[in-house]
């Protein structure tokens, strides 16, 4: 019997490009990589999948806009490094299904922040600075605050998966 194990107990493996797949060196690893790439292209012919790609495309555009803004005020804030930009892109691609688009802003340190805002007592922020870890902070109702840092290697971390999903699903 095959059954579905709870996905929330584990980090969410990136569905289409698991980290290891990118770094195989053999011809056969290319076969696997290309098979998933072609599969993704075929799925994108369907409107359902196009919506996901459109969502990702919109979010990436928002990311580009956010990182371009501080260029106008260089003396006040650091620019996002190539590492931070790459990590932010990976984070967007790793977000689980059903997570709405975040507001994306630059922090003075050069980190890139993703904010989901419901009201002043319900806010969730994840930021990345390109060093392989994500910092998060959340207010989820009066007196319920949390913050921390988790490692990020391409798969959406289990801790954040649980917290963010619960935050999104809850009503303020």
């Amino acid at each position, binding site marked *: 019997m095959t059954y579905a*194990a709870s996905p929330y*107990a*584990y*980090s969410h*493996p990136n569905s289409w490009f*698991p*980290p*290891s*797949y990118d*770094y*195989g*060196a*053999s*011809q*056969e*690893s290319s*076969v*696997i990589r290309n*098979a*998933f790439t072609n*599969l993704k292209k075929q799925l994108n012919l369907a409107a359902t999948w196009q919506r996901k790609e459109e969502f990702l495309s919109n979010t*990436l555009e928002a990311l*580009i806009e956010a*990182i*371009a803004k501080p*260029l*106008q005020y260089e003396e006040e804030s650091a620019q996002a*490094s*190539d*590492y931070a*930009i*790459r990590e932010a*892109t990976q984070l967007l691609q790793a977000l689980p299904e059903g997570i709405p688009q975040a507001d994306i802003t630059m922090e003075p340190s050069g980190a890139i922040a993703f904010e989901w805002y419901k009201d002043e007592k319900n806010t969730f922020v994840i930021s990345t600075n*390109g*060093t*392989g*870890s994500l910092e998060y902070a959340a207010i989820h109702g009066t007196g319920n605050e949390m913050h921390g840092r988790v*490692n*990020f*290697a*391409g*798969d959406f971390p289990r801790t954040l998966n649980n917290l963010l999903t619960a935050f999104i699903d809850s009503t303020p």
Partner: protein
Amino acid sequence: MQAVQNPEYPKLSRAPIVEGLIDFRLRPLQPITLEQLSLLDAQLNASYPIKKNIRAIEAAFNIEAEAGQKVLSTEHFIGYRYESEETSFIFQARVDGFTVSRLAPYSNWEELLSETKRLWEIYSATVKNTTVVRVAIRYINKINLPGSAIDFDEYLTAGPKIPEGLPQGLIEFLTRTVVPFDEYKALLVLTQAYRPDQSSSSHLPVILDIDAFHEGAYDSVEGEFWKILDDLHDLKNKVFFAAITEKTLGLLK
């Protein structure tokens, strides 16, 4: 068909491994730069004389240039790929991690592990102050099934399935299953694939790709993660022999 029953993992004289790799993902204290990685050249030149750039394929960043604004580059070089003279070993030194691959002809786990340890000592001494946050092994097997029209169930214990009542012939398949192994504190991605453009009249090549990984936080010097690699290797063997039948084992012994 039943999986291979022998719990002692029989020796295979015709092991189907086309690539075995060990991969570490890192969380450095400061971002690792390409300039740092270039320092590896001098230490690797003799054993890995071929060097290539590794380019990350990212979404394009095109910002409309206005007066005074910088246009961001769309290319990311994230490291270097070093190849041994015989191209049996390939070492990838990246800003986010480290991968050592052994291509065919694969000899044994001890050889791959030993070379990985040697290269890790060089890499970690160069980049310094990193935490290992993910360790993985991945074994890609290509099994040539004899004949031109076969029943995959005779060779794979969890092969592709077509609903009953439909034509049972297929011309390609790709399956991917992600399984948690709590006792190993690992996730395992099992991918099975067959594509007709690789087949010949005498055999059908099936790819059995086993990728096992564990996430945590380990000091790069103390090296607790080496024991985890041994555990992942054991898990890989368990899964491989569970995925093939006795008939397939007969082809490989």
